[in-house]
């Protein structure tokens, strides 16, 4: 591992396509052009696992909070979860089309996957058992998140935010206040509120039980691609991007969750690769910069 200002650099043997960081702050993983997933232990920067994707055309990835499970979906409808500790396949499904969103519950027991307009499916990871199917949405879900206790699941699409009871699959609440696509959702620490944002350039806090909008931020300069509430539940981070180029990073903006008072923003010197960092359990917000030959993890908080 190389120490760089505000963070570390993890050398990658091939250009990076996508990367994820576990909330525990112990593991980072990257899908690379050579069709390998490289998994690093952040304590010493060693590559602890390499997973071969073969000829699969990479669609998206997700990682469990503890860094033990890595999901990779491909455009042919394959969905695989690997165990980082033993390299074995922990979960496997095939879907029609491909995934537009996926999320592990915070304890890694459950996995929600959204295959395009098909029903959203919730699985028990260990047994591969389908627990619930929730109604799909035309054009697919754009974002999924679990509440910290796993009781609720929040989903967003082009028009609405919906909150479901994750254990029964029943709809709890819905919000249709956004005009443009919603791209990011996260629950507050206690699950009483869900926060959403997207191309409206406004972050809205909603009641999880009624769906009613309670408060909103001022209009931002850029759309929001990713939202994350800090482990203590006090800070909200929004990763933004420039509308003219989804790959072009804009500053990470922070607010106090309760007051929505804005705090100093962070602009990565190298450019932040959106949505792939986040809060770690020790209270740091990591941003990820994908450099040609390395993954840079920088502390924005």
């Amino acid at each position: 591992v190389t120490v760089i200002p505000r963070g570390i650099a993890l050398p990658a043997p091939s250009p990076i396509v996508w990367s994820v960081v576990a909330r525990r702050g112990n593991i980072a993983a990257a899908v690379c052009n050579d069709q390998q997933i490289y998994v690093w232990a952040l304590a010493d920067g060693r590559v602890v696992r390499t997973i071969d994707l073969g000829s699969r055309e990479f669609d998206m990835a997700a990682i469990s909070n503890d860094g033990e499970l890595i999901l990779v979906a491909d455009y042919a409808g394959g969905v695989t979860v690997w165990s980082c500790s033993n390299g074995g396949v922990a979960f496997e499904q095939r879907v029609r089309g491909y995934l537009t969103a996926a999320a592990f519950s915070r304890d890694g027991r459950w996995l929600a996957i959204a295959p395009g307009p098909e029903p959203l499916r919730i699985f028990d990871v260990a047994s591969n058992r389908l627990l619930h199917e929730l109604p799909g949405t035309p054009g697919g879900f754009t974002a999924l998140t679990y509440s910290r206790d796993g009781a609720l699941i929040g989903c967003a699409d082009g028009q609405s935010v919906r909150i479901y009871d994750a254990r029964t699959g029943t709809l709890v609440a819905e919000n249709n206040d956004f005009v443009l696509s919603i791209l990011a959702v996260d629950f507050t620490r206690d699950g009483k509120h869900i926060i959403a944002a997207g191309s409206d350039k406004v972050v809205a806090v909603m009641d999880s039980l009624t769906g009613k909008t309670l408060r909103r931020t001022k209009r931002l300069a850029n759309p929001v691609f990713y939202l994350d509430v800090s482990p203590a539940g006090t800070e909200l981070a929004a990763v933004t991007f420039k509308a003219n180029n989804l790959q072009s990073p804009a500053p990470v903006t922070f607010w106090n969750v309760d007051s929505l008072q804005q705090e100093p923003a962070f602009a990565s010197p190298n450019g932040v690769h959106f949505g792939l960092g986040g809060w770690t359990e020790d209270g740091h917000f990591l941003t990820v910069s994908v450099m040609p030959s390395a993954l840079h993890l920088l502390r924005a908080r």
Partner: protein
Amino acid sequence: MQHGLLTRRELLDRCASLGFLTVSVSFALPDAVTAWAEQDHVREATAWDEVGPFYKRNAPHTAHLRGPGDSGLPLSVSGQVFDTRGRALDHATLEIWHADHLGHYDIDGYRYRTTLRAERSGKYSFDSVIPGHYPDRVCQHVHYRVSAPGCKTLVTQMYFATDPVFEGDPDRNYKKDPVIQSRDLVRPVTIGGNPKTMVASVTFEIVLEPV
């Protein structure tokens, strides 16, 4: 059920129950009803595509998205909306949005966005410009969100066979954009007019699944 009429399956079931339909002993009634009902699905439903980050509701009703002096190759799109039984959907609503010729979406206003109501026989048309390549996407594309009473809402995208990404052979190369679920979404382009008033014309028919 549509417009108060029985579906084919309902009609056949009722005829069978009243003795107006009998099936030979080598053919079970449920199989016959299923096979007959399947004959109604004369068209394949249009493939879905992602809604993307820039959908915006409440777009104005206009068939003229191209303004005077707009840069980019003028585009004329027309088509019809059907259901899988081949019936034209007169009441279909089409929400359409795309980037400008440089690949930029207008998210602060409604440029290159419209809400159309299909005319008689499910026909629709609009004028615009060929969109540019958005940096995060492989292909030029036009987004559609199409809804009609009795049908599932469809979100899809239309692509251009002339897109350089396809290297002149969309049959072989349409999967270069991995989100394209069907070759049928890549439409041939007809160039008309004269060199000074050239217009690219595209036809895109949309088929919705029943609820």
